[in-house]
């Protein structure tokens, strides 16, 4: 393992020069985030893997485009993943992704709990997949990747207010779609929000 103190832009440079260990270091640091974002956006594992691979190769190929003064490498990779996902959206007619029905990881629980968790995971995936792409990306980055509103704004290239607005509308849709799994009545929540 390489020295963790080495700045990421230095690792990127070394990767560009063919230093395999530097590339592996970068890859292992960011693989799960890039893959997770791509998978949740596309809903298909194979496509998400392709996007992840392209993302890291583009990082090495287009080193000049990464400016550490403007954004962190993580933000840059999210933005690149987003672009690659939208490129796929343009080529493929969006359809309900059947792979959202994939079994989630085995948590080591009993069969019944596993079944319930799998169902819940599938329902959440379907609800997210039904969101418009602009709302979906905001929800994924904020809720699943744990980024701040400002970071999401940088990645999606809009201001924070727009991010907040999209997130609000996305959450309303999700509440309606996942109402049976929530304690509170989604209709009541939606009505209350409209009154606000």
């Amino acid at each position, binding site marked *: 393992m390489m020295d963790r103190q080495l700045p990421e832009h230095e690792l990127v440079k070394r990767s560009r020069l063919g230093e*395999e260990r530097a590339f592996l270091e970068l890859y292992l640091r960011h693989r799960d985030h890039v893959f997770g974002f791509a998978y949740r956006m596309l809903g298909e594992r194979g496509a998400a893997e392709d996007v992840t*691979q392209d993302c890291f190769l583009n990082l090495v190929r287009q080193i000049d485009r990464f400016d550490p003064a403007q954004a962190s490498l993580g933000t840059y990779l999210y933005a690149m993943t987003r672009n690659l996902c939208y490129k796929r959206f343009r080529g493929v007619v969006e359809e309900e992704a059947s792979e959202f029905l994939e079994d989630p990881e085995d948590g080591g629980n009993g069969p019944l709990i596993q079944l319930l968790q799998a169902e819940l995971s599938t329902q959440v995936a379907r609800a997210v997949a039904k969101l*418009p792409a*602009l709302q979906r990306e905001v929800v994924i980055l904020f809720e699943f990747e744990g980024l701040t509103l400002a970071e999401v704004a940088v990645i999606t290239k809009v201001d924070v207010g727009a991010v907040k607005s999209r997130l*609000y509308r996305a959450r309303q849709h999700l509440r309606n779609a996942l109402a049976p799994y929530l304690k509170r009545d989604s209709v009541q929540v939606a009505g209350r929000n409209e009154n606000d």
Partner: protein
Amino acid sequence: MTDEEKKKQPSQPISRGLSESAQNLPDPNEDLELRTLLRQWHLPRSSSEFDRRVLTAYRDQVSRDAVWKRFFFRSIPIPLPVATALVLVLAFLGSRTLRPPVVRLQLPGPVPQVVQVEVPIIREKIVTRIVYRQSQETKNASKGLRNDTVRSTAHPVSKGSRSSQLAIQLADFEPVEKIQLKIVKGVDQ
């Protein structure tokens, strides 16, 4: 992004208006119930071969991008008008560079050199003389005078009275077409 989603994407002024009204929206971090539910969505593991595939692709990429290959095969997108202008400028500069230079020597002054050459000149002297031939009719008439004529031509100056008589008789002569003269020096002497 589908066309439907593009239509739904707000334009710039609308987006600005939304961002202003977004100040009044509730904090998304407050809705913990929905957040907890969303976190139930677990990701599948990436395939076991995936990491190896990425590493192989990286190695191919790096080997493909060796310095000399990048130098020779890297392409740069240039707009056609710019490329045309560049080609013209390079052609102009190239023609100016490759043209042989004109050497102008500045001498202190012309120094003419005079060389005298003697060339032999062949001079031809053409002498033209009209000779009259005596016709057959006058030949007999003047037969008797032949001796006198010969004598008078031999001594034309000394015999002035006979030379006038001879001139009348020569009028009947016709000129020959060709005559070859041979001048022998020193005959008169």
